[in-house]
């Protein structure tokens, strides 16, 4: 792979949500550590997959990167400028460059707006992108790009199926010609046959427009299919990051290994022949995460050091960073 320069550099990003008690005299009794020190680079034109189970902070990460939620601390440089310090005009220009595709195509489109209005709304806020007269033509073009019939511009969201609605959401994200699109579980609400259509579309658009994706999903097969690099999250932290091949073929963190091992493989002849790792218990609460390594309570390798020392995300056993004191390669796929 050729060397890209980074379009987005995230450093030590932290997002804590306060847990409060009382209505009138509110007091903070704790913090939900949704994202707790996350760093990564997104290269130009690449897809960074972010995987993890519910509650690992992957969607909060998306919201903070979109500046829908202010971060608690940390920085994110978009083309060298810190997006959390931007205001006014600079922030508005930033929003043109970073767009989001949301998970649920049923709730993320306003049912009282036509498709044309939904996709054209970004132009109202950023009139410099498309002068008034040319908007309808632009919207038709966008519908065509995402594989919908441009003549359906006056229809309402309920007249479309789930897959088509997701295409509308993608068209809206594309309207301002962004450089980065954050995809938050874009295909998890869709049926298998429709999911494949939308995944292919995302791939084609990336090639056509040179987009960079932060692709957030819980489905490891989907993430592998679309991603160049993959970050695995657990309880607000990245536990392992590397190229798609490094993560899937040479995982070194026990959590990554367990996660991969838990995915059922659609081949009945493999039944009972795979190396199966079964985790016990559930993910602990992010309000009170375990000391040291957050995975230690479910880890079969846990030693005393795991409870006292937080493992840093650094290169250990293999050639990519892993946040485990006992990182060791183990093929599970």
């Amino acid at each position: 792979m050729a060397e890209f320069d980074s379009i987005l550099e995230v450093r030590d990003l932290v997002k804590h949500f306060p847990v409060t008690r009382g209505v009138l005299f509110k007091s903070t009794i704790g913090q939900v550590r949704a994202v707790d020190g996350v760093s990564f680079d997104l290269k130009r034109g690449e897809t960074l997959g972010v995987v993890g189970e519910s509650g690992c902070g992957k969607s909060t990460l998306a919201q903070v990167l979109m500046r829908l939620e202010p971060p608690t601390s940390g920085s994110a440089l978009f083309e060298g400028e810190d997006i959390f310090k931007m205001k006014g005009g600079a922030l508005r220009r930033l929003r043109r460059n970073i767009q989001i595709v949301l998970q649920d195509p049923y709730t993320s489109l306003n049912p009282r707006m036509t498709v044309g209005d939904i996709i054209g709304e970004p132009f109202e806020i950023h009139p410099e992108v498309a002068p008034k007269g040319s908007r309808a033509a632009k919207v038709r073009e966008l519908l065509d790009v995402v594989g919908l019939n441009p003549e359906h511009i006056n229809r309402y969201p309920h007249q479309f199926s789930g897959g088509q609605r997701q295409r509308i959401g993608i068209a809206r994200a594309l309207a301002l010609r962004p450089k980065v699109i954050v995809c938050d579980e874009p295909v998890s609400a869709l049926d298998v046959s429709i999911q494949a259509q939308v995944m292919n579309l995302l791939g084609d658009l990336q090639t056509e427009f040179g987009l960079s994706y932060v692709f957030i999903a819980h489905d490891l097969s989907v993430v592998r299919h679309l991603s160049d690099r993959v970050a695995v999250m657990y309880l607000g932290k990245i536990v392992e990051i590397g190229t798609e091949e490094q993560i899937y073929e040479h995982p070194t963190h026990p959590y990554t290994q367990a996660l991969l091992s838990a995915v059922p493989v659609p081949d009945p002849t493999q039944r009972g022949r795979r190396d199966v790792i079964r985790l016990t218990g559930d993910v602990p609460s992010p309000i009170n995460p375990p000391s040291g390594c957050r995975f230690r309570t479910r880890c079969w390798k846990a030693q005393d050091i795991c409870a006292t020392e937080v493992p840093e995300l650094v290169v250990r056993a293999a050639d990519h960073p892993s946040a485990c004191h006992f990182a060791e390669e183990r093929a599970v796929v």
Partner: protein
Amino acid sequence: MALLEVEDLHVEFRTRDGVARVLNGVSYHVDAGETLAVLGESGSGKSVTAQAVMGILDTPPAFVTHGEVRFKDEDLLKMSDEKRRETRASGIAMVFQDALSALNPVFTVGFQIEEQLRVRRGMSKADARKRAIELLDQVKIPNAAQRVREYPHQFSGGMRQRAMIAMSLALDPEVLIADEPTTALDVTVQAQIMDLLAELQRERKMAMILITHDLGVVAEVADRIAVMYAGRIVEQADAVTLFRTPGHPYTAALMDSMPRLDQKGTELNTIKGLPPNLLKIPSGCPFHPRCPRRQDICSVDVPRQHNLGLGHVSACHFAEEVVGG
């Protein structure tokens, strides 16, 4: 004689917009100790079939217009209500997808398990409590004696699913219908629950009908697989045969459109178009508008079930050629 047999079941939903033909002649059977997976996308009728078997269809709008559901050779649809409830209560149980909405939030988990034991088995309160704790233990809920007194919201997603499985096992059913039991769960928890279901089935020699859209889950647990499309079973075979030599273009296309964990794909094969609108199902073979092998006959004649040997049947005019590749 199979333990549970569904034969030529037709169900329609009479809605304001017209009659939706949700099931159009579904037949399947399941034997003791066997796992039948019913695979299909949303709207294919996989859950409605199960609801018809359980007798929990909402009428109106749903009406069973034709067909039989035989449990131990007795047609459940022809029984009196009282007898049917009795038969189902002790014979067939169901696990639902969303445990949070399937459990009653205002009663303790223990109470909800005990209720059936007291009503159906006439157990005393104390005996029912003892049995409920045993059941929670069997589904590997830690500290069962304590948790039996807790409410559903105090359980995590995986624990709730376990509690619902415990509830479904209370009356020792012979058939367990699991409707997308792990779809709402994370993958590590999904693996735990599937292992648990498989283990319980082995121990109790239950028949299991597993309803799912996940080809991976199917491949790991099913003995036989029935693939549904537009209210029909389009293909049935044992798991290995179905994955190795699918005999229906829909099954083949579904498998090709799955991203795989063990290889980095390029372009996924897709199924063109959309699933059919059940208010107006296409003529002939319902899959023909999306089918890559479509011929003239497909839009005219409804394909019969072609027998491909060893219990492998496919409802495609060109089934033999599809198997040949």
